[in-house]
Structure formats: structure tokens, C-alpha cells
């Protein structure tokens, strides 16, 4: 294994500690919600993973723009790293949302605008990784990836704003949403602490995983380069 920078090692440990504290706050510190019961605690990690997921998709779009301007391989590596981590976080968001919906909406899934746009976003980026596999030329692959992530990044703000603009049953906790939404609740002070701490924690975890994944991408590029030179 190649040596990790010391700062990254420290960030790994800090991320783990923050995650433990965030889990404690969400599971034990925050008060139980009166109408939904314990399942409401899923909300803290659901929103935090959604935030980091969408943040990564936007970051990938920005990396795509920078690749097209500068034509440097590192932007391609950063773009793939951002997409991969966001896919994992967004998958968790969708699963946690589905688990929350079962007792609250009495259904695992409905084709509500928010759920639909979230599912489309996830599928768009799964397709991105699959299509990349099919392109052998690294320059073509990077150019394709850049254009794809720039277009794909549009899905992030659409997913975020859809519950604020369209009729939906998905609750809006911060800001005003549809009055017909089911599962809305007012956050108490304890809930706010758990919520904002989870948002902060997941941002740190995202940075940590992102850095680790970028190093992996660089290593992979180096191996590919060496393979070509040995085969020549």
C-alpha cells in the first residue's frame, strides 16, 4: 500500500469520531417525535447523506467544466471520485427515505416528484459509471465524462427544489413546503443540534472519502500508464 499523507490519516480518525457523535446525537440525544415515533430519527442521516450526495454531483459538474477548459487528467480523476462517493450517499438517502416512508406514508415507495427526481438522478450517475467503462481511449473517456457530468449536475438542483415548487407529499422541514405534505414536524432545539451536527459531520466525511478516492484514482492512472509502457 502507498503511504497516506498524515493530514488524511488525521481526517480519517476525526471523521470516525464525528460519525460516532452524530449517531449518538441522532439516536439518543434528540427527543422522540410525538406522531411518528422512533423512525423520525432516520431523518438526521437521511438529510445529511442527501446533502453530501447532491454536493458531490455538483462538484463533479464543476470538475467537468475545469477538465474541458484545462484538459488535465486530474480533473477527470476528481470528477469520478465525486460521482462515486455521491452515488453511495444518495443510495443511502433513497433507502433511508423508503424505510421512513413505510410507517409514515404506509408505502415503501410512491412516484412523488421528489422520489422520482431522486431515482432519476441516481440512475443518471449509475449510467455514467457504466458508460465510462465502455470507452477505452482515456482522452475520449474524460471528455465524455466531463460533458455528461455537466449535464447531469442539472439534476441536483432540480431534485433539491422540486419539493419547494411542485405539489408533493414529501415534507419540507427547512422553509415552506406543500401543505398537503405528510410527515412534517417542527424541530425542537435538541433536534436542531442533532440535525446540524449531522450535516457538518457528513460534510467532513465527504471530504475525507473524496480525498481517499482521489488518491485511489491517481494510483489507478499510474498503474494504467505503467501497463501501457510495459506492453510497448
Amino acid at each position, binding site marked *: 500500500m502507498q503511504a497516506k499523507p498524515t493530514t488524511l490519516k488525521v481526517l480519517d480518525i476525526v471523521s470516525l469520531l464525528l460519525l460516532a457523535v452524530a449517531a449518538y446525537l441522532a439516536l439518543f440525544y434528540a427527543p422522540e417525535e410525538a406522531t411518528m*415515533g422512533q423512525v423520525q430519527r432516520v431523518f438526521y442521516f437521511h438529510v445529511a447523506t442527501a446533502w453530501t450526495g447532491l454536493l458531490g454531483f455538483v462538484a463533479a459538474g464543476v470538475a467537468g467544466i475545469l477538465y474541458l477548459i484545462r484538459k488535465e487528467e486530474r480533473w477527470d480523476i476528481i470528477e469520478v471520485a465525486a460521482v462515486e462517493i455521491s452515488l453511495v450517499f444518495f443510495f443511502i438517502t433513497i433507502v433511508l427515505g423508503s424505510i421512513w416512508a413505510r410507517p409514515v406514508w404506509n408505502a415503501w415507495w410512491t412516484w412523488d416528484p421528489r422520489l422520482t427526481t431522486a431515482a432519476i438522478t441516481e440512475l443518471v450517475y449509475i449510467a455514467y459509471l457504466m458508460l465510462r467503462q465502455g470507452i477505452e481511449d482515456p482522452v475520449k473517456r474524460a471528455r465524455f465524462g466531463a460533458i455528461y457530468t455537466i449535464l447531469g449536475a442539472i439534476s441536483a438542483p432540480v431534485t433539491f427544489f422540486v419539493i419547494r415548487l411542485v405539489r408533493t407529499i414529501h415534507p419540507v422541514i427547512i422553509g415552506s413546503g406543500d401543505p398537503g405534505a405528510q410527515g412534517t414536524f417542527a424541530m425542537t432545539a435538541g433536534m436542531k443540534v442533532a440535525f446540524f451536527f449531522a450535516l457538518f459531520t457528513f460534510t467532513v466525511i465527504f471530504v475525507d472519502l473524496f480525498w481517499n478516492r482521489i488518491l485511489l484514482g491517481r494510483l489507478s492512472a499510474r498503474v494504467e500508464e505503467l501497463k501501457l509502457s510495459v506492453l510497448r
Partner: protein
Amino acid sequence: MFFDEVPPDTSIYMVAGYVIFFVVTAIYVASLFIRASNLSRDLETLKEAEEEQAAPAVEVASPPRVAPKPRAARAKTSKARTAKTKQASRKTR
């Protein structure tokens, strides 16, 4: 009090949610670690292969090239060789 509404027991969903979160995250972190260790191994193997490829090329180039003999000297040696073979054939007869 007596008419206070008790929240429904939805703790099983909460547990399921957090278990899934930790399992998926652990799988992803493990996949990062496994991929990194596999790539490091590949890198070392490729470096060794590259060094091996470079090493014999140096050996071939190192021995000094012998200058070709002049034509007259080559003719002498070929004549001597044919005489030797003729003698050998006579002896066998």
C-alpha cells in the same frame, strides 16, 4: 395523562435504517481499501516487470563488438578449414 397519545412503535424501522447505513458505508470503505491494496500490488509488479525489461537490453549492448576480419584473412582461414576437412576425410577412409 390517560388520553395522551402514545407514539407508535416504529423503532424496528429506525434500527433497519441505521443498520443499512452502517453496512453500506462499511462496504464502500472496504472496497476503497481493497482496491488501493490491489493497485499497489499491481504497481509493484509492473515496476519489477519494467526493470526486468530494461536489464537484458543493457547486457546485450555491453560486450564490445568484434571488428570484422579483412577479406584476405577470411580467405586464409577458409582455405585452412577446407584443408583440415580434406585431411580428416582421408584419415577416415
